[in-house]
């Protein structure tokens, strides 16, 4: 059977906002329930306890520091811990919001026994200075149950573990309250009683979720867990034997780094979309060069070409003594599906294309079009977030130009009116009324224009029937 270790972090958010002032009472309040979920030692001295309301707490202690509970903070912190633990143990799984599950069994060969493993893990973890409870068990659920109640023992003795689990009453488990009540009525109050019933009997009398629970608790059923894999990142630094003063000469040592990047990416069958080259100067600030490739590249040659373009334009103030290459945006290689007969065809999705364009040109440069019900021509056609136009209006029958000027301009050309007028008098409700007589006109150069005359008999050009 697989041995699991569960780490429970009861005051994770409190640890995250830990400050130097240790004697300051701090509490974390879940706003929805108006209940204290975490508090520090200084607060405990004042008699503050879990589940108290904010009013009670503040009446107990006047200078209380109150923070709202934020699940994201805990999630982030949990990720940080997992990343840190990855150096000593391999199979890590999250139990949000404040638990981490480790698969111990396959680490024991490496560490030569559970004690050594726990010692290494504990030393490594305590450097983070988080408060945590821990427990081992032969199923994830049991380990979680033990750790959450502060069992704090690492053992692979099945008897001890089974005994420990059997002590717990059903209310401490993750079972829904309704099921617990149902069990209580049949005289089952603790896990010992529950586990003594054969699973087949449970299946007969109760629903499948309880069967699953018991199976998972005893480790007879598989508990599906997703293991954490840390993000792939490449970072290498190259110390130069001689200082380089000319930006063009940097290319040579850079190739070495790029070759390493290529090896790194090829091994993982990935491509990088962005690399950052940092030039460490002797007497000046570091220069960061960001080089991006929209389709993603892995070969050193491609990146060399791209970086050469950037290196041409920079100026080095002071000699460069080392170069760091960092590839943070690593993505799986997109498979180009090639049709045998029609050859290579682009297969970017519209959204991918949009993100590529937005990344380079900025969000404001890409627009979508939408129709509104407003009768003012400049408001009927409006820009919107690209690819989100949801208008299902159907305005038919009106002849409108294909190009509209952003703002109407004074009519300067000599034109002859072909059709009109079409009076548009609207917008009185929001302070921007218009009363305009629109005409279709043709200029001497043969351009088809959309012009209007306002109430002051001034003529404006508003669009073209391009």
């Amino acid at each position: 059977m697989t041995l699991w270790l569960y780490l429970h972090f009861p005051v994770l958010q409190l640890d995250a906002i830990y400050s130097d002032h240790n004697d300051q009472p701090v509490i974390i309040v879940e706003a929805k329930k108006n209940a204290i979920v975490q508090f520090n030692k200084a607060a405990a001295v004042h008699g503050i306890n879990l589940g108290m309301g904010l009013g009670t707490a503040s009446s107990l202690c006047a200078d209380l520091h109150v923070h709202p509970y934020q699940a994201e903070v805990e999630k982030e912190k949990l990720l940080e811990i997992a990343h840190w633990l990855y150096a000593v143990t391999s199979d890590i799984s999250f139990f949000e919001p404040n638990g981490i599950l480790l698969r111990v069994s396959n680490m024991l060969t490496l560490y030569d026994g559970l004690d050594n493993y726990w010692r290494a893990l504990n030393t490594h973890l305590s450097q983070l200075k988080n408060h945590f409870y821990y427990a081992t068990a032969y199923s994830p659920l049991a380990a979680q149950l033990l750790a959450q109640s502060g069992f704090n023992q690492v053992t692979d003795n099945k008897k001890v573990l089974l005994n420990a689990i059997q002590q717990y009453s059903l209310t401490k488990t993750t079972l829904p309250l309704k099921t617990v009540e149902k069990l209580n009525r049949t005289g089952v109050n603790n896990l010992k009683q529950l586990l003594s019933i054969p699973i087949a009997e449970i299946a007969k009398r109760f629903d499948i979720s309880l069967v699953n629970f018991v199976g998972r608790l005893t480790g007879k059923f598989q508990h599906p867990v997703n293991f954490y894999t840390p993000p792939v990142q490449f970072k290498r630094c190259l110390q130069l034997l001689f200082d380089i003063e000319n930006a063009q000469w940097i290319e040579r040592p850079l190739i070495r780094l790029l070759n390493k990047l290529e090896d790194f990416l090829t091994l993982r069958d990935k491509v990088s979309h962005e690399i950052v080259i940092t030039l460490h100067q002797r007497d000046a600030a570091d220069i960061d060069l960001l080089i991006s490739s929209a389709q993603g590249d892995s070969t050193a040659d491609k990146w060399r070409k791209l970086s050469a373009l950037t290196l041409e334009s920079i100026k080095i103030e002071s000699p460069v003594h080392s170069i760091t290459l960092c590839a943070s945006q690593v993505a799986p290689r997109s498979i180009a599906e090639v049709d045998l007969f029609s050859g290579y065809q682009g297969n970017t999705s519209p959204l991918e294309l949009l993100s590529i364009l937005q990344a380079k040109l900025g969000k404001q440069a890409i627009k979508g079009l939408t129709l509104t019900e407003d009768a003012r021509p400049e408001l009927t056609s409006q820009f919107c977030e690209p690819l989100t136009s949801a208008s299902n209006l159907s305005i038919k029958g009106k002849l409108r130009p294909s190009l509209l000027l952003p703002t109407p301009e004074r009519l300067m050309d000599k034109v002859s009116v072909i059709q009109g007028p079409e009076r548009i008098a609207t917008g009185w409700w929001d302070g921007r009324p218009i009363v305009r007589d629109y005409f279709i006109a043709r200029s001497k150069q043969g351009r088809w224009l959309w012009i209007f005359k306002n109430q002051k008999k001034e003529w404006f050009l508003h669009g073209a029937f391009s």
Partner: protein
Amino acid sequence: MNEIIALLQRKNLVWHAKGEKPNNDVSPSGYSAFDDKLQGGLPNRGVVEISSPTGIGELRLLLPNIMRQAQERLTVFIHPPAFINAEHLHSQGFNLNKVLIVFPNSAKEALWATEQCLKSGACSAVLFWCQSLEVHQVRRFQVAAENGNCVNFLLKGEQANALSIPVPLSIQLSPHFCGIDVSIPKRRGGYPLPEFTVDMSSQWPSLTIASSADNILLFPIAKAV
């Protein structure tokens, strides 16, 4: 040697002076006179250069073809001379959800954006209003458009372009009372065509004038300026 020629012929890259074969990689433009002259219509992929003054009906000539070819793919307008009117596109039958308008900050960005859109395969047509392009830029557009199975309309002003650029089809437009005058100085697999008129009076009755131009009223210029 014969094999190479046969291959080129199969790929429609060799043109025989005698006997013009109808090109099958084209789609109708919606204007019969135009289609007849172009042996079927506008190409489905590749670069099409259009020199025309703005506002004489150049978009009206192209949009029916673009709309028909879109088929749930994107139509991208890059660096238009003014805002594109949603109402017009809607009345032409466009799905506004599949329309992108790009306002690049510089000429370089415009070129980059055009190439990205062309090669993505997500677009069916990219309309790019540009000033002048260099030969290598047009070559890149052509390759990208073929990769992305996309047609690229390069809309240029009417300035006499001294430098010929390598495009499969070049169209020059000039205004005409009852539509638009088209001449084709260059096309792949065919002789250049002298000027002919595309009659738009059935599609755009309000935007044409009957050939007897006696119903034109001279209109007074704005006096305020």
